[in-house]
């Protein structure tokens, strides 16, 4: 996937997130892109580390700046006490239309990612994305071991919330496999 195709996928994801009532803040997009790459296997090529609110990619942050510079996204304040939203511009649709093959290849995965995490708040996103990070990067197999790891990494998350998030990740993983199989 080249740079322009990657930006087309991200623009499409932002649109789908908005359609799923996402706040579309940086954290929402970071975590949705993480799900798209790690759960759904879309090769957008980002390097995620455990950082702000769980998995975080500095390269995603760079690409969000690029997308603003190239007129694909606007940074908009929708509520005074929440972070700003990245909203697609009028040019975004025209840009996406330049990449019909890329879009048709990945549309189902993009829709799945947007639907799965689009309308979650920052705290929910932190729990789910970190639980997914543990599932992908540790050798811990059982739910309870992964729950303990999640609480260890993020002490402000309760054991009960960690268990819910870990189970949700397992369910999303199962659903995503079916999606990949269907395609």
């Amino acid at each position, binding site marked *: 996937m080249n740079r322009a195709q990657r930006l087309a996928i991200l623009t499409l994801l932002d649109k789908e997130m908005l359609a799923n009532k996402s706040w579309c803040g940086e954290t929402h997009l970071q975590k949705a892109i993480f799900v798209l790459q790690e759960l759904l296997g879309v090769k957008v090529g980002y390097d995620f*580390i455990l950082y702000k609110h769980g998995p975080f990619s500095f390269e995603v942050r760079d690409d969000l*700046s690029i997308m*603003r510079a190239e007129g694909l996204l606007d*940074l908009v304040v929708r509520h*005074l006490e929440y972070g*700003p939203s990245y909203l697609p511009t009028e040019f975004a649709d025209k840009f996406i239309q330049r990449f019909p093959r890329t879009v048709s290849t990945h549309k189902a995965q993009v829709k799945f990612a947007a639907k799965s995490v689009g309308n979650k708040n920052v705290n929910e996103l932190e729990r789910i994305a970190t639980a997914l990070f543990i599932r992908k990067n540790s050798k811990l197999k059982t739910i309870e071991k992964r729950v303990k790891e999640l609480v260890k990494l993020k002490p*402000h998350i309760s054991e009960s919330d960690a268990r819910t998030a870990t189970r949700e990740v397992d369910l999303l993983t199962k659903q995503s496999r079916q999606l990949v199989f269907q395609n």
Partner: protein
Amino acid sequence: MTKHWHEIRDPIHIFVRLDTDERKVLDSRPFQRLRHISQLALTYLIYPGATHKRFEHSLGVMELAGRVFDTITSDQNVTDELRDLVPEIARPDERNYWRRVLRMAALCHDIGHLPFSHAAEDELLPDGWSHERLSRILIENELMTKIWKEMRPPLDPEHIVKVALGARKTKDLSFTKWERILSEIIVGDAFGVDRIDYLLRDSHHSGVAYGKFDHYRLVDELRILPSNEGSTEPALGIAEGGIYSAEALALARYFMFSQVYYHPIRLIYDRHLKDFLVEWLAEGSLFPGGTFPINVEGHLQITDNEVNVALSSAARNPSAKGHEAAIRIIERKHFRVLYERNPTDLALHSSPGEVIAIAAKSKFGETSIRYSKPKIKDIAADFPVRTRDGRVVPAIAISEVLTSLKPMAIDYVFIAPDRLKDATEWLLKERQKILETASKLEKEDKK
């Protein structure tokens, strides 16, 4: 009587004060090498005053880092909420330890820079290497660890590495919330003191006054605040009274990038320098492998001085490696701007400069064309603001200036001076056709 505090005069901060341990770092070989590493590479060919070095910049970063630390940890700015969030801040011994780590990290943040700083970095180191990785190696090398170990309490080199370079450049290390804030003080997008010092210093030496802003007020108003989006993740933010100085910092950044850092002639000199270095290093007589050395001794031996001697020599000798590029620098026969991207062309193709450069190379030859697309810079990073009524809001919600400053994207195609006239006429005739053809190919969206 032994002196424990030392003062150095500085054009930006008037005095930079350092203690005896910090003085040992100053006297170390890796730090003294920075006396011979230009802050702005060949920018002095456009702005003659811009000959300052990484040495004084690093001292300035240390001075500012200490001031920021003292502001954000002062009793009046540390709330109960903050003590719960970042417990280290409430423990005096830990606070003193981390203040020393921060100032040492600030001193060392640039010690891995190659000759001429950023200009020569890409393509001149082996894959996977960067100046930050070299800085880390030096901080963890015995030349420096000897100093860290002798301090009371001794400093952990890994702490210095994390704070100096930040998480982006040390992805293998994990950061606590407190370490994240400390690294933000140095390398942060919004209020990193590296950025504050280089804007002020580069502005002063280049004579471009746009880079100045009220950094005293800015530093006084910095606070640790919960980041936005309803989370408790702490970030470096500002009290509302400092919003105008934060706007002034963003404007300074905008003007310095447009007037100095991304000045087209500076960009083409960077490119000529890189062309020279690639050929010079490829000769392999100085350093095997065709790149700058990545071992400590090799790194410490190479500065701007060695490169300047080689440049001058290559310019005089037509059979020398890199002669062509050296002549362009020494005799100031730099390439000229043929094309600069614009919104109309961007609507036709996602990378118009690249497309024009390819067509121009095919018409005028590979050696006559250079393409430059520096990294897109986010001019105004968002940050939390504590309003006068106690709420925490995103800066862009209360600042029209920050909202209107979009990231800066630059895209230039350069051509050899003797081909400029022909190429300008050619581009006038062909530009639309080139972009339309490329646009059609892009729409086919082949993998």
